[in-house]
């Protein structure tokens, strides 16, 4: 079962910025085909890295989440940002396969 959770402007602080685990935030929208194709990969990633990484999604089509898109300067989606201790420590733009994003994240987390 996928461990990905949906996050919005109201619980972003608690779920992402205050998280003990590193968090991968997927900024996406339903009008973006590559975002839709990325979704199953992130589901798998959330299972594979369970306990080491939290994976959350922010739908930027929702009015209430557009401030987050502005705050984090999202100019292209899918845009996945890696947070640790409330700070962005990595960024991945565009569709990519599971093996690639997993090793990219591990490299940053294990640094």
């Amino acid at each position, binding site marked *: 079962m996928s461990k990905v959770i949906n996050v919005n402007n109201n619980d972003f602080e608690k779920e992402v910025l205050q998280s003990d685990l590193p968090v991968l935030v997927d900024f996406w*929208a339903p*009008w*973006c*085909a*590559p*975002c*839709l*194709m990325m979704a*199953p990969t992130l589901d798998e990633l959330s299972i594979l890295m369970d306990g080491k990484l939290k994976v959350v999604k922010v739908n*930027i*089509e929702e009015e209430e989440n557009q401030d987050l*898109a502005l705050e984090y*300067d*999202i*100019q*292209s*989606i899918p*845009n996945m940002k890696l947070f640790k201790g409330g700070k962005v420590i990595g960024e991945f*733009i*565009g*569709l990519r*396969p*599971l*093996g*690639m994003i997993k090793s990219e994240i591990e490299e940053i987390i294990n640094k």
Partner: protein
Amino acid sequence: MESNIYDLIIVGLGPAGLTAGIYASRYRLKTLIIGKINGGLMTEAHKICNFPTEEDITGIELTKKMEKNAKNQGAEIINKEVVDIVEREDGLFKVISSDNTDFISRSLILAYGTVHRHLGLPNEERLLGRGISYCATCDGMLFKNKTVAVIGGSDSALTSALYLKDIANKVYLIYRGEKLRGEPVWIENINQSKNIEVLFNSQVTELIGENKLEKIKISNGTQLNIDGLFVEIGTEPISYDFIKNLKIDTDEKGYIKVNQAQQTSKIGIWAAGDLTTGSNNFRQIITACAEGAIAAESVFKYLKAK
């Protein structure tokens, strides 16, 4: 004896691949369609009006219809990027995906399409996703009330500009030619749009910005302050090594040469859609579908005769 051998693997999930999958499944061929994005570049079209059954549909919606049909007819769809294809000694083809999985087939249809042509300017790769985009339908909404520019003069450039005019405050359409060359309907719409300014005889010569795109310089020396730049200067085929290794003939631009049956120079391999030299180089959704149908029928005849 291997148990999981496909009759046909179709590489590519755009309109050519999905249509080939529909036909092949109805011919009762054991068919796999493998590719990165369901719908391929078709998903980037925000408005399709020239597909005969559709007056006005988005690329994503049209994709869903084709995908549903292909699945219902019995085709298997897998989302993986194909990185290599080799011919085994027994004449079967091995298709290898980026995660190192192998798929074996008696025949192949190559339908993996084309990719966006890049400008080839310094800073382009660095600013990709930071103000530079090749997909207005994906990223356009992120430029609400901002100033953007579209480069190109073909249908995809014109439709991108028309899509962006309702989101952004101002849209520059930058074209190197003297006259736009897309469908007259789109050109009329462009001319009627108050916030689209067309700059003819112009080329972008410099991309300026540190962490994101801030300015562009155009060929007459002027600088434009913009937030987003959408590059729509056409597409080109991907030059995979396996094309050479399998001795598949291409034209000088890299498009795969096919005959009227969509057959390539390599026995057992057909090609369909934007990556071929077929359909008078028209490269439309409907011509891609037609090539996919013809290719599937050719494969059916070939396997039956074997």
